[in-house]
């Protein structure tokens, strides 16, 4: 899993069937890397989030018909880093 911050969202009128009604957010990892992840937790722009990647992660969270492998699995309140 990786930490990131939501910097935007993606809309597409024409999309794969599994993405109907899906909320897609652009998450930046703080080093310029960006990934588009599906959100079911209600994250918004500016939120810090935890993104998990993989087929199994996708199957367990949003279902196997979704054509995307990055999923937001937590909205981060804070990080303790002494």
């Amino acid at each position, binding site marked *: *899993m990786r930490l990131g911050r939501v910097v935007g969202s993606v809309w597409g009128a024409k999309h794969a069937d599994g993405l109907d009604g899906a909320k897609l957010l652009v998450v930046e990892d703080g080093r310029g890397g960006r990934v588009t992840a599906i959100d079911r937790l209600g994250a918004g722009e500016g939120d810090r989030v935890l993104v998990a990647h993989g087929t199994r992660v996708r199957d367990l969270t949003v279902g196997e018909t979704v054509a995307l492998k990055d999923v937001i699995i937590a*909205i*981060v309140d804070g990080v303790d880093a002494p």
Partner: protein
Amino acid sequence: MILGRVVGEVWATKKHAALDGRKLLVIEPYLWYAPSHEVAHLVAVDAVGAGVGEDVVVCMGDPARRSLGTTSMPIEAAVCAIVDKIELAADRGARPLTFVGGTAPAHEAV
């Protein structure tokens, strides 16, 4: 599996239900083996009671879920060992010695 150091802990109220009660640790992978890990940090679920500042072994993918005794957690990294000592081969100089967090701690020198 990858080797790294615990540098932080993540707090999250809103999260996938399977993560309830689990400790999420921020890991900085060591980069002195090749190929180096692709990211500067990753977040792993704690399975062994690791704390900030400790060197740990992180397993990735399906074994990570299994090390937590489940196959139904939407995660891909778990801390599965706390490192007591690391010994590096004499030819380690041939590999990148860059650490994400600065120079190598003294106890890693062989």
